[in-house]
């Protein structure tokens, strides 16, 4: 019996020391509250030929964030940060939609090419950030602040429309062709939403790239000790640069999915505050925010947790303008249970209690 409980305790300790333990616990907690408050939470049905339910909704809506979180994880692992991803999303979406055009009959530029150019624009933005950070050695926060402010402005210029003989920027341009909607909606005769496939593909490709090449090792080495990395032959400038390019690519992809959901480019709202959620997803995933070791899976779980939180709060009747307050409270809770300082404090407290008991 004694050994059994010891084994159990040992096993439990191992479990709690796993890197993904706390992120998963956080997600489960959010889901648990839901099932108590909303018994129908896990119900999934097929309506109008597609899957329907809260869980599906969470997974569907978290796709952009999951994609963004992949790029953000890599950037943060190099010891940087990219606060321009929301604006880059809007910019890439604006370019893509501009190329598609608003005709009812045909795309101005074929859809594949429009999307490709949108993605290339995102990579170009990432390259710009990467150049500033890796080559010019500007602080990441400052370097990406440039596109954070300018990106949306450029997107508005691209989304200009002629009104009363004058080009007015910042208009919402609609795509009228049905096939573009599939990108953020459903493919014909498929019950699972398309963004889910895209996000899954991004995660799998990223995972394969990181596990089948030495890229992941190089990123970690760069983030932990770039001087030592350089001396063993790692080109940390190039590695950092590449991470920003990838981050730009993921931002563009997320932006195009968002625009497809509303079949329009809305430079003011696409990707708004998404950079914050993406950074938060990385933090919730248990990643070290000062760079180094990272966990892609953690960030993905973090992204889903954030969306689960948002959806559940809506399900409980919290209004959109109140949402940030509740979200903030829950985030404080989740982040503090992961904090090292709290762990240390609890440890020292339990030790103190133990000695008091012994003394008593």
């Amino acid at each position, binding site marked *: 019996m004694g050994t059994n409980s010891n084994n159990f305790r040992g096993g439990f300790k191992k479990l709690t020391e796993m890197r993904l333990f706390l992120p998963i616990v956080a997600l489960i907690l959010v889901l648990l509250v839901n099932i108590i408050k909303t018994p129908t939470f896990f119900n999934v049905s097929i309506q109008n030929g597609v899957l329907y339910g809260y869980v599906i909704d969470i997974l569907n809506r978290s796709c952009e964030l999951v994609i963004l979180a992949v790029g953000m994880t890599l950037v943060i692992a190099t010891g940087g940060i990219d606060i321009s991803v929301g604006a880059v999303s809007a910019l890439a979406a604006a370019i893509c939609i501009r190329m598609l055009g608003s005709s009812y009959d045909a795309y101005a530029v074929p859809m594949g090419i429009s999307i490709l150019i949108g993605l290339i624009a995102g990579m170009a933005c990432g390259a710009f950030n990467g150049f500033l950070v890796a080559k010019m050695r500007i602080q990441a926060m400052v370097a990406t602040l440039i596109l954070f402010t300018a990106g949306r402005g450029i997107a508005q210029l691209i989304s200009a429309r002629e009104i009363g003989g004058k080009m007015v920027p910042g208009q919402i341009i609609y795509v009228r062709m049905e096939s573009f909607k599939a990108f953020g909606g459903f493919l014909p005769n498929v019950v699972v939403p398309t963004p889910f496939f895209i996000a899954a593909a991004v995660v799998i490709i990223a995972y394969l790239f990181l596990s089948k090449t030495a890229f992941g090792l190089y990123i970690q*080495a760069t983030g*932990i*000790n770039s*001087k*030592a*990395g350089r001396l063993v*032959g790692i080109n940390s400038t190039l590695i950092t640069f590449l991470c920003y390019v990838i981050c730009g690519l993921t931002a563009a992809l997320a932006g195009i999915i968002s625009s497809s959901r509303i079949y329009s480019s809305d430079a003011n709202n696409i990707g708004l505050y998404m950079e914050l959620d993406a950074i938060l997803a990385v933090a919730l995933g248990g990643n070290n925010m000062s760079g180094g070791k990272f966990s892609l899976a953690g960030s993905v779980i973090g992204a889903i947790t954030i969306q689960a939180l948002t959806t559940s709060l809506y399900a409980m009747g919290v209004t959109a303008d109140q949402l940030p307050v509740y979200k903030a409270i829950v985030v404080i809770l989740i982040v503090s249970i992961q904090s090292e300082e709290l762990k240390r404090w609890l440890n020292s407290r339990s030790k103190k209690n133990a000695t008091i008991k012994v003394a008593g």
Partner: protein
Amino acid sequence: MENNVVLTMRGIDKIFPGVQALNKVDFTLKKGEVHALMGENGAGKSTLIKVLTGVYQKEGGEIHIEGISHPLTNRSPEEAQKNGISTVYQEINLCPNISVAENIFVARQPRTRIGAVNWKKMNKDAEKALKKVGLDINVTKPLGEYSVAIQQMVAIARAIDVQCKVLILDEPTSSLDDSEVKKLFDVMNNLKASGVAIIFVTHFLEQVYEVCDAITVLRNGEFVGEYRIAELPRVQLVAKMLGHDVDDLSSLRKTSKEKNNIQNKDSILKATQLGKAGSIKPFDIEIKRGEVIGLTGLLGSGRSELARLLFCADKPEQGDIVFKAENLNAHAPIDSIKKGMAFLPEDRKEEGIIADLSVRENLMIALQARTGMFKLLPMSKQNELTEKFIKMLKIKTASPETLIKQLSGGNQQKVILGRWLITNPEFLILDEPTRGIDVGTKTEIQKLIVNLAEEGMTIMFISSEIEEMLRTVNRLCVLCDRQKIGELKNDNLSQHDVMTAIAGGV
């Protein structure tokens, strides 16, 4: 207090966790003298200075300064300054973005009657203060627009503007060129004439003999002695710093090692006029295949800098390297690595270990970089190599997946060494591979060096311990004041010979 004595420190003790940094150290400073504080790294020079200036609190001993009857205890640099002790640190701690005058009067700007800064008076006073150090510049310009030498002078001007009796110059010349050093010495001589006592901390022997009146030598936190400059020839000074009595050294002759005819072998590396301003003056060097070549010289003499240029850890500004009979046009370390070089840096923590990676990852990373990013070494091979080198180098680690930061210093060093041996280099540079590790491991590493050389590897070995170099190297390059000043064949060399050479008398 004795006549003419400005400052006495008696029996100063300072303990850091686990280390006695200062053990009953004495120091006496006379009025109007320049007094050099000498010692190798870790001898306790900086600690003594920091105790004096109130950065550290001493555990024992007394400090007396002229004009104050009771023993002095400085709790902060500000308090020390109030008591007449000013310091100019090695790294200039002024603000480059504000004006020269503001830098001189920071936190004590002259005020007008309503409390605003009196700019006119401040600029005028600043000019006056700079005159004392022989400087006539526009004091309203930002400090950053002036050269490092002028910034250094401004720092000195600020230090002496507050009534000071003792001026501490901590390595003030390390970033100055010859003419700037000359200028600094003129200023020091003027200050001396006006009665200020100067404590001068430096690694440059030449400068000590040029400008100082007295020398106090520390070693391993202990007071070795105080000497007038004329009483202590250079060789003696070096011997005192390194801790061997010159006369006893003959008994320490190394066991004669079999020397295969290195001189007849072909050269693996040849550098001509390789140099980098502010780092090391242009030098030539030729290294034969299978040779162990040592670099010797005091700290800051340019030995690490020389090695770093060869590996392209620092990019040379001039000169050529021919490696294995072809021009080595390296732009980054990876180029040198691909050609078969390896470099173990001096600073293990800053440049060696990648703290949050495992022992396996730290071992494999150089080979991985050499192989290329897209050719990930298969896990089976990684594990096999890791196990092999853990066993071969006797690395004590809980498992290959333990983070390297959890290992002891000696074991970390073995991992870094293993990292390079795995790449099977033809030319291996080891910069202080035995520093800070226990005696047993030291001997292991020395043996390894000899064995590797016998197997045909060419090794450059840098160490502060002359004895261990004499045991392992075929030839010694001597460096002094950032310059390669000569070479010694290790033909029954004695430590005395080497010290004479280090002191500048090849």
